[in-house]
């Protein structure tokens, strides 16, 4: 067992050349030099595996799920021919439990005020509540219009 209380110091005696200066707040918060005896010194992290990005990870997950599904299907069909396998094997994967698209009736809201919007400006595509908002839309610059649209997730396509 290592000596008790041996690791209570804030900053480890790293190299002995500590110049006498008042440590900044950030230095006081830094735990870079705190000893970490609990870590396995022989562990080497697999940098390649760690460097995967979100898209690859999700893509792999989907691909594996599909392959697994196929394998299980074959397995079941071999033992029990004619069995409806679609309902049987159901492992929820990240992609599978994603909510379906929005299917409720679409409601239109004013892009400027958020109130109900019965109208759409044909020139900009902005939805608006009444004529006073329409007047405000008229004075918007094209870039502002674009920002309003992108808040609703409509990204205009450059023609």
């Amino acid at each position, binding site marked *: 067992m290592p000596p008790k209380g041996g690791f209570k110091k*804030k900053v480890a005696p790293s190299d002995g050349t500590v110049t006498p200066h008042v440590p900044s707040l950030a*230095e006081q918060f830094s735990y870079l030099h705190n000893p970490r005896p609990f870590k396995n010194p022989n562990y080497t992290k697999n940098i390649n*595996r760690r460097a995967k990005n979100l898209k690859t990870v999700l893509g792999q997950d989907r691909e594996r799920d599909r392959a697994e599904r196929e394998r299980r299907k074959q397995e079941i069909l071999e033992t029990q021919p004619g069995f409806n396998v679609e309902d049987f094997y159901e492992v929820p994967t990240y992609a599978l*439990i994603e909510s379906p698209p929005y299917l409720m009736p679409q409601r239109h809201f004013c892009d400027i005020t958020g*109130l109900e919007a019965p109208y759409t400006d044909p020139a900009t595509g902005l939805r608006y*509540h009444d004529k*006073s*908002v329409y007047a405000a839309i008229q004075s918007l610059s094209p870039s502002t219009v674009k920002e309003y649209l992108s808040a609703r*997730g409509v990204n205009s396509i450059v023609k």
Partner: protein
Amino acid sequence: MDATENIVRLPIYSLPTQPLQQQLYDPYRDTGVPLIIDNGATTLRWGFATSSTPFSGQNAIAKYKERKTNKPLLLFGEGIDTESGARSQARAPWEGDVLLNFDALENALDYAFIQLGIDTPTINHPVFMTERIATPLHSRALTSELMFELYSVPSLTFCTDGLASFYQNHRPQPGTPFTSDGLVLSFNTASTSVIPILNGKGILSHAKRIPWGAAHASDYLLKLIQLKYPNFPSKIGIPQTNWMLQSVCEFAPDYPAKLRELQDPIKLKASERIVQFPFALPVQDEKSEEELARAAERRREQGRKLQEIAAKNRMEKLAQKETDLQYLLDLREARSTDSKREWASKLQSEGFDSDTALDDTIKKLELYVKKARKKEAGEADEPMEEPSFPLIDTPDADLDEEQLKDKKKQKLIKAGWEARMRARKEKEREREEKEREEKREEEERLADLEGWASHLRHQQQALMSKIKARSRRKAALTDRKSAAAQARMKNIANLAADDNKAPKKKRKTGGEDMFGADDADWQIYRKISITAPSSDEEDDITQLQVIENKLLAHDPTFTDQNTHAFLTTQRSALLSAFRPTYEEGDIEGHTRIHLSVERWRVPETYFSPNMAGIDSAGIDESIQNIFNRFSESEKARLVKNIFLTGTPSQLPGIIPRLHNSLRPILDPDIPIQIVRAADPSLDAWKGMASFSQTPEAATAGVTRAEYDEYGPERIKRWWGGNWNGSV
């Protein structure tokens, strides 16, 4: 008027002051007490299972090299804020909803273990850790690898956080199995999950994850604020909108009804919350009346002194000139007495070439002295006096050469003088005309004020509609397909055609091109020019101002609110209630954010993510989807216990909102009960801590031996764990 109770002040953020406080490890040494880690996307919570509450910190780390001392720093959680440059270097283990950045996770876990004071060569505690529902296996594999190979834990159990929180709030009696039913709504940072539970088992195959979480809501609010206040002076970021989301936003039980209510500008105004950002008033040194008076007096005194000095200078100069003049006059006197030679040398020594030069100088000096004297006496010079032109009427024959020259000069002077007089007369006549006009108008006004006013008002109306029509035409011309633009193109085509035809016509018929014979012809060029003639615009506006000033002065019913300037800059009551404006220079007002519709608009996105452009079913629709896969009796068991957990579930109004949208899709006799976790933020951790101390817990985890045999993705199938990768 100013509803001050609606103002909420943005809290002033202060830096954290408590650096890492290491705990004593001794009470836990060799005890094998489970170590519980709730690895949330926003907050990391950790602690031993026997503690009542976990330690927690923002789940992010920053590696940073301090510029001054060149020292590398490693900061965790709130500590990142202590170094401004470190903020941009911050890394979070989570990327959206997926655990992906394992370097950051390793550093964050290091912090947790250091903080717990663990000083043994391995982490000798069974570890319970949260996992996102249906996590990608890659995340699990790397987490397991870290835990078993780097920290050498004896066993590792992954638990989904929503289920753990549900467990904490429905703990079975010791010795009895966990058999509660319910529907868990777990509100996370980057997603919201709905998990059905029957007989104490999460039915993960029927769970749904909505890709909309607190971070998205906060981001959406930020976007709305930036659009509403594009020139806001203070920095608005995610921390500020997070705070606003938590403090002023709420779910509307019936959103369309709420919107209809807010259509009324008065109600809209009443519903707003004003977020006051910190601001600094410019330093004004207040001066007392006395001080101001003294300063004015000082200024006056200085002015007077300057004037005196100037006057003195003038006097001195005048005296100097006078003595000069006297001297020269005396000199001239001597001419008659001195001999020619003597006189010439005298002149030479005085610096004059000839007699005439001397005379000129004397003349100039005399003129100057005369003028200066006059000025001194305060007399205005009188140019009205007609100068005499004695030579003009004399015939040329009677004049010598010198006189002829003078006559020419006098002629010129006379012509100029006459022209000036004519112009003056003209001006006078105009003034009289104007006065007459004004008088006539005044008489008209006094005789029939109403008629006069209505006449002017008509004129004003006509001018305003003219200006309006012009701006409308301008707007129409920007659209290629508008009638105005088409008419313009037609005109241009016609003109071009004329140009081509003209010579031919000339040749054939000998007819003249009559364009321009009528002045109105030229109007065509004004018509086709896109840039509206600005001079017309200006003329109209000045005329409008004249009319408005007259009306303002005499018509009591015509106020500031009827002027063109007011009418064009006027904003509708709705828009001014939506985003009130403040006067120029009102610093307090300009650092305010008025939130009205947004207060309900942002939470509503949980039910309609498509409002913010995410094409996904909201909470209610997802629940409906899940219900479709259960029998009526199972449905009834689920809705009897709808359980909300996760920090964002604390937004007010969620329970009535959810109730309102679930009631119509269920049988009327099925009771709905919605409850929120006792502690939505901590119950996931607490649930794992409670569970870890039951005998059942030992069967849920993966041991080191199992890890070595089956690999890092394999887990056991149990009520609180994920299904993918499990046996």
